[in-house]
């Protein structure tokens, strides 16, 4: 890890994307250590793809940032705001501060997790109206813009049950964009899709990446997509970062044998 410049770099970009800083983060499920004294720095607006074998803990990185799992010790900072700061591993996270910091983070899940009893538009406007106090008209207008952006404007009134997997995932992406997060987390968002639907979702992700309004952390097995979109690829194994570098560095000349064999297995597939 060569992140010496990140200490002085701006923590929030002009477009509103925020840096993510993880220091000495530990997380274990029982005896199973998933994050082992992890340090990770993501610059504002940076697009980081996290790769690694399944069970290596890469999804857990996103889940602890989203506060779906609590860390055992260490600190996580979003922009300038500490989400967790547990230097000695005992200070509990403050619920109010977590809520405040969490409002700048968005997450898209492997299994969409759309609300099945609401239309696509209602899914998108719920958080802006209920959490951020946006007026309903305004939220709906912004929601329609987002649906337009992901190519689903005419499906605004459809419930998730009436949409295909790729459409659901695009609605889910629009929903997480609705609160204009400074950091977006994408957890294997194409893994549950039929192969022919993967392209439409990756297309939307590329659009978001190009706009650069948000820091993106993606866990994915789509290496072609990673090569195209990522500023940096992080190879993760056994709770630690094995190596990290530009996509071509990691994919063409990885330093570690472990990375080489993993890439070989994924690309052969």
């Amino acid at each position, binding site marked *: 890890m060569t992140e010496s410049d990140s200490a002085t770099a701006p923590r929030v970009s002009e477009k509103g994307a925020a840096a993510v800083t993880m220091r000495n983060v530990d997380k274990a499920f029982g005896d199973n250590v998933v994050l082992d004294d992890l340090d990770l720095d993501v610059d504002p607006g940076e697009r980081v793809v996290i790769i690694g074998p399944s069970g290596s803990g890469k999804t857990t990185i996103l889940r602890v940032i*989203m*506060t*779906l799992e609590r860390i055992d010790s260490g600190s996580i900072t979003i922009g300038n705001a500490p989400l967790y700061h547990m230097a000695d591993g005992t200070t509990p996270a403050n619920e109010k501060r977590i*809520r405040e910091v*969490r*409002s700048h*983070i*968005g*997450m898209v*899940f492997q*299994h*969409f*997790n*759309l*609300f*099945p*009893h609401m*239309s696509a538009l209602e899914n998108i406007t*719920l*958080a802006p109206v*209920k*959490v951020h106090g946006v007026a309903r008209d305004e939220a709906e*207008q912004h929601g*329609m813009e987002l*649906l*337009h952006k992901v190519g689903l*404007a*005419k*499906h*605004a*009134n*459809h*419930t*998730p*049950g*009436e949409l295909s997997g790729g459409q*659901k995932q695009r609605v889910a992406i629009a*929903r*997480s964009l609705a*609160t204009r997060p400074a950091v977006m987390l994408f957890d294997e968002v194409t893994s549950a899709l039929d192969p022919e639907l993967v392209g439409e979702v990756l297309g939307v992700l590329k659009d978001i990446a190009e706009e650069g309004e948000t820091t993106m952390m993606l866990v994915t097995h789509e290496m072609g997509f990673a090569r195209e979109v990522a500023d940096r690829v992080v190879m993760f194994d056994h709770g630690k970062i094995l190596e990290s570098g530009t996509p071509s560095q990691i994919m063409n000349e990885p330093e570690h044998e472990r990375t080489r064999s993993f890439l070989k297995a994924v690309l052969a597939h």
Partner: protein
Amino acid sequence: MSAQASSSEPMIEHRSIWKRPVTWVAIVAFVAFLVILYVLGTRELTFGTDVAPDPNLKWDWPYVISLIPDMLNALSVTAFATVYGFILAVILGFFLALGRRSQSRWISWPVSGFIEFVRSTPLLIQLYFLFFGLASATPIRFSSNQALILGLGIHYATYCSEAYRAGINSVPGGQWEAATAMNLKPSTTWTRVIIPQAIPNALPALGNYLVAGFKDAPLGFAINVTGLMFFATTVRGRDFRPIEPFLMIGVGFLLVSLPAAWLIRRLERRISYDRI
């Protein structure tokens, strides 16, 4: 807004249960039935009949017909005790379910204990306690009907709470995670995300408890409720005719139970969410 929803594909029926005709047919039918019963059952029980039963017949039609108005009165008492009790059960049960899920042990343990205690003791004993026990030990006095409604309500609240709990547990974990990721307040998560999915899941079980509660309502006989059981035993005692009144109240129970069970089965079939 450039993109109004003008889909070329047919719009499929929205899946909210309140937008389905069957829900409203069921509700209207049920309310109409109660209104009819209420109107029929407004008179006091008289047991007055000018028709003496024919001792040579085991089943005397004119005698049976003369008893019908009184039977409907009694049916009305039983049915309304059930309905009021069940309304209490549905509301109280929801709060019991929330209490049992509470993060605080000071709430969840006593609530769990109460639920297990009530579920594991017979309703008949609970009715005795409410009607005779409380009256002898405390200044609290319940009428027979009040004690039956309260007894049914509390007893079935514990069952309903389990139905709610199952309904809440059947909401996938991803829904909670999405709510967290969207930073929804706990109250918004409950009212907008969890409850709208949990209630339809719980409805079939709740419906079954309504029918079960109706069939338990004759236990009110033990605390002098003038329902169907009281009607039948009184007639039997006066005229020494057990066959007619007991068969009649059997039919009276069927009149309510069968349509209710049918409606519940229909609801059950219709209310099934497409899981994402």
